[in-house]
């Protein structure tokens, strides 16, 4: 049974993606008998390239993938280089989980209200500093260059890359390396960049690729913050797929393939950049220069991360303010009155989606957890440890759902399901979520699992416990904290899913995220505030349990504090 687990995981992840991609390729070349496409043709591509503003959509999607990743990565590395050991460092480390648990859509809403010309920032300084009695006519949110979109993504990708870097740093013994370099006269931040980053980057390369893929193909954030005339490629594809004129599905499939190509091109360009940076960096690392720029680096590392974390938190606070606001005329810094009216109105309709969200998240997370534990336990018992960070390992395939753009294969998957006569159900949605929950749960659990001292199991076995007994009585309870964290990550990932829920549920399965994004279309900030807060607080509950439960259970066990 256990031995089947890795194969089950791989086929669960790879099968649907390949099937979905295949069903995007065929219609893209005119072949889909169910819709009357019997012969191969290039008509879908001709229709696609005739779309107004296509080049611009593609350019924004491509740029968003690269710029978002470059800035997020730079901020994370500068922070790690410049702030380690400081009080800010400890605060940020504590904030990672809450920041990570804010769904992308909620963070995007928060940012939109913060930076809009009539947003919180403008209100705070107006009219005293700016003289604005009316909001300035500036295109800040939904700007045609996608800057707001990239900013929204950067806020969310920084905690992700930071978490991945911190996990990888465990293997590197960074303190000793830096201490060594400092004894040779290097200032700390420079030392960190020169002796840790070159070894760290290969370990976080796959997460970085995942960020590129995500940022170049995201739908919900782009709907909220992205340009509108035209929107990004992924958003355009979604519109074409939903067009009542079914013949547009052929064009939409071609668009999905184009999106696949755009993401692949972004990844390839990044790879090229990697080579370039490696070349230029080699000279810098061994150039012997050890002091210049230290102050700037330290300052930038702290300031940038503070800006990103602060923006996310203030954005959420702004949402909370909105959800309680009475009428709020510009440029008042605070609403004229506060009211529970919006919560009271939303409350009756919250129950269903919240229940559905929690049910789907719990089931998909438990499934993912079971499969991950089975695969990891199998790995321990068979004594095979895949090399970490290596691109050739079979479990690298885990990253496939994170690197292939959702929009490129989900529609194909829906076509497959339609052809199979499967009716949209909650189970189908759970299956769809599993595709994305499983990789994250596995990745977040595997670190702790593989680092777990094998002597604990050996002691248990030599004391006569069976392998299963050792698993249930020793390994599982001792790994409770990372286990709960992995669950919290899984819940957060599931709660944040927009496209899989929308497509596989055919609109019949509503979660807080689909509701919140649907309401975003409505633009009622007070209601969006209510829903986005609910959406953000659900995963937070998971993280609170993950932190609190072990403390409660092990309050009398000093050896269980901190990860084993």
């Amino acid at each position, binding site marked *: 049974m256990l031995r089947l687990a890795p194969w089950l995981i791989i086929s669960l992840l790879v099968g649907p993606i390949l099937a979905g991609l295949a069903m995007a390729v065929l219609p893209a070349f005119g072949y889909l008998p169910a819709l009357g496409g019997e012969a191969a043709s290039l008509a879908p591509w001709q229709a696609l390239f005739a779309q107004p503003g296509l080049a611009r959509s593609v350019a924004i999607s491509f740029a968003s993938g690269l710029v978002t990743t470059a800035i997020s990565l730079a901020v994370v590395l500068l922070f790690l280089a410049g702030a380690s050991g400081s009080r800010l460092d400890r605060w940020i480390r504590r904030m990672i989980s809450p920041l990570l648990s804010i769904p992308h859509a909620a963070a995007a809403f928060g940012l939109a209200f913060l930076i809009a010309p009539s947003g919180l920032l403008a209100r705070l300084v107006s009219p005293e500093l700016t003289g604005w009695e009316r909001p300035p006519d500036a295109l800040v949110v939904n700007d045609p260059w996608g800057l707001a979109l990239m900013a929204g993504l950067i806020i969310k990708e920084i905690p992700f890359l930071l978490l991945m870097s911190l996990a990888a740093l465990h293997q590197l013994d960074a303190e000793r390396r830096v201490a060594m370099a400092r004894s040779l006269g290097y200032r700390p931040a420079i030392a960190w960049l020169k002796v840790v980053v070159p070894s760290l980057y290969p370990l976080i390369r796959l997460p970085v690729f995942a960020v590129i893929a995500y940022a170049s193909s995201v739908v919900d954030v782009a709907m909220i913050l992205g340009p509108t005339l035209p929107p990004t490629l992924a958003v355009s594809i979604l519109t074409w797929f939903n067009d009542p004129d079914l013949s547009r599905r052929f064009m939409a499939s071609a668009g999905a393939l184009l999106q696949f190509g755009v993401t692949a091109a972004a990844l390839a360009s990044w790879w090229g950049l990697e080579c370039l940076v490696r070349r230029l960096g080699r000279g810098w690392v061994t150039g012997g220069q050890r002091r210049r720029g230290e102050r700037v680096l330290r300052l930038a590392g702290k300031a940038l991360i503070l800006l990103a974390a602060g923006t996310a938190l203030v954005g959420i606070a702004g949402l909370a303010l909105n959800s309680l606001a009475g009428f709020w005329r510009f440029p008042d810094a605070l609403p004229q009155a506060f009211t529970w009216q919006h919560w009271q109105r939303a409350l009756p309709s919250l129950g269903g989606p919240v229940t559905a969200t929690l049910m789907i998240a719990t089931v998909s997370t438990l499934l993912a957890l079971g499969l991950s534990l089975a695969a990891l336990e199998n790995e321990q018992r068979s*004594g095979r440890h895949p090399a970490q960070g290596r691109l050739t390992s079979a479990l690298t395939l885990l990253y496939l759902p994170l690197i292939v753009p959702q929009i490129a294969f989900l529609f194909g998957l829906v076509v497959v399901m339609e052809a199979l006569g499967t009716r949209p159900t909650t189970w189908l949605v759970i299956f769809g979520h599993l595709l994305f929950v499983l990789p994250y749960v596995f990745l977040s659990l595997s670190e702790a699992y593989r680092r777990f001292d*094998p*002597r*604990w199991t*050996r*002691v*248990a*076995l*030599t*004391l*006569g*416990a*069976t*392998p299963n007994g*050792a698993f249930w*009585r*020793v390994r599982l*309870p*001792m790994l*409770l904290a990372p286990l709960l964290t992995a669950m919290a990550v899984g819940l957060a990932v599931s709660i944040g899913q927009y496209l899989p829920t929308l497509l596989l549920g055919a609109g019949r399965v509503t979660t807080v995220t689909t509701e919140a994004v649907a309401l975003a279309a409505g633009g009622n900030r007070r209601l969006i505030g209510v829903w986005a807060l609910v959406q953000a607080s659900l995963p937070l509950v998971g993280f609170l349990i993950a932190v609190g439960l072990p403390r409660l259970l*092990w309050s*009398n*066990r*000093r*050896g*269980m504090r901190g990860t*084993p």
Partner: protein
Amino acid sequence: MTDPCLELDLIFDKVHIALHGRTLLALDARIAPGEVLTVMGPSGSGKSTLLAFTAGFLATTFEATGQVRLAERDITALPAERRGIGLLFQDPLLFPHLSVAGNLRFGLPSATPDKAARVEAALSAIGLAGFGERDPSTLSGGQQARVALMRLLLSAPSAVLLDEPFSKLDTALRHEMRELVFDRLREAGLPSLLVTHDHADAAAAGGRIITLE
């Protein structure tokens, strides 16, 4: 019926372990009940490989031939938990999520009647009566080492492997623990294999010494 002493011996029969075709160690020995065989050698000489092979944790990359027999039974192919071999590590490795009594209870075979009384008696035997509900991490190093030894004995092994069990203790404690461990093992009549690089350990064990290169 054979000689009862012979029956309980731990026997290494032409044991030969290699890695990628290179011989790591070869051992042919017999350990009688109550005897401690000491294996010495510098690091990298294959001491821990021998322990892993005997206890049943050897990675599949090693090529091992020969037999390990315990109580006339060939245990070479048995899984670790069915070999009847107990292990004492450098660290006490008391399970941090269990209480002191919970750790001892973990050692007891599941069919043991009246576990609570056994555990209480075991605690008194090592001078820790009343410590049952304590968090193991609040115990001193010496106390933890004693609990670990008692946990091992309660699991009723047929032989014991000792992996430098005293190397992390300070000098005074080391002396005391050596006496306690070897007395108890002799008392229980268990064949034991001690791996160490400390000559004082070997002397205290008082048995034969094999040196690996």
